[in-house]
């Protein structure tokens, strides 16, 4: 007696045999083929590779396996297909939304030599703001928190002048998520004084 090691689909997180009900079947299939070719063969072997003539046989076999009758099976298939297209459309919309949105990193002066950096527009990318704030806090050894800005959006506020570092980090983060094209805008409300340039003027 031992434990089963169930494989879960990397796309929809279901066991692969349920992928057809997740609405992401196309991508699930690709994932399964790449990661578990043997299971792919077992699940979809009949329909893939087989051309027109044997697809009828595959359909017949499918019908034989299922008990709910041809009519209901067809209806189910149609429903699933509809669900799939719906899901795809939704994903496309979400992607477009993600690509059209932008991240704003803003540096504000607090007192003479103290700054805060506020980052907003991250929530679209499924980033856990609280967690990221914690990472920043330990990375830059500063205070960092999540708060709501004037537009009622969540933003991360970092105490300290770390604009460049944050920018680099955000770029890396977005790249990791495969969203390199997203615009990152930096707003610097007060130009940093450069003490090295002034003495030469004399």
């Amino acid at each position, binding site marked *: 007696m*031992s434990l*089963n090691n169930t494989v879960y689909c990397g796309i929809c997180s279901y*066991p692969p045999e349920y992928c057809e009900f*997740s609405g992401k079947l196309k991508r699930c299939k690709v994932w399964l083929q790449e990661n578990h070719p043997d299971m792919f063969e077992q699940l979809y072997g009949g329909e893939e590779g087989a051309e027109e003539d044997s697809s009828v046989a595959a359909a017949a076999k499918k019908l034989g396996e299922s008990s709910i009758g041809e009519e209901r099976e067809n209806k189910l298939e149609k*429903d699933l297909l509809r669900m799939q297209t719906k899901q795809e459309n939704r994903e496309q919309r979400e992607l477009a939304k993600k690509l059209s949105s932008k991240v704003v990193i803003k540096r504000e002066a607090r007192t003479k030599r103290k700054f805060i950096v506020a980052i907003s527009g991250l929530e679209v990318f499924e980033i856990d703001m609280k967690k990221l704030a914690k990472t920043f806090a330990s990375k830059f050894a500063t205070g960092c928190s999540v708060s709501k800005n004037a537009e009622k959006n969540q933003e991360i506020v970092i105490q300290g002048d770390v604009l460049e570092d944050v920018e680099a980090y955000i770029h890396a983060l977005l790249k990791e998520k495969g969203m390199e094209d997203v615009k990152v805008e930096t707003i610097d409300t007060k130009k940093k004084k450069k003490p090295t340039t002034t003495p030469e003027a004399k």
Partner: protein
Amino acid sequence: MFKKFTREDIHSRSNVKSSIQRTLKTKLVNQYPKLEPVIDELIPKKGQVEVIKCEDKIQLYAINGEVLFFQQFDELIPSLKLVHKFPDAYPTVQVDRGAIKFVLSGANIMCPGLTSPGAQLPDAPGFEKDSVVIIKAENKENALAIGRLLMSTEDIKSINKGHGVELIHHLGDPLWNFSIE
């Protein structure tokens, strides 16, 4: 039960004392006697069980960052991850192919979906009303949901109308997607 479940519903997380861990294990074995041979594999003696208290007095028990079972009142209910690891230990019913779609969106299971040719119910005497069952599907190996019987399996066979199983937890619900970092 987990139709809406987010991080905000978590009240506290804490580690479970080893003594309580032991009682938990015995309780689990008492409820599902067939788990006994593998219980030490599921919950290693040295392993740390974590209890996550949530809204509505729901408690989740996690081992190694994976929620393995939960309870609302006294009864321990396995999560699907646990069911997939060792599926033979629980009372099981099977639904037909037509029902899968609805179950995966969280619907309660209607009796006809449990009595049609593709479905399977245990022979008499079957299970009592209110007992927790795992739900498998026609031609599928793994379970897809966990529910509570709203009528006994014998009643389902004879009445064959209305809600048969109240769904507790299914593939793709917030608990399924829940992860502890």
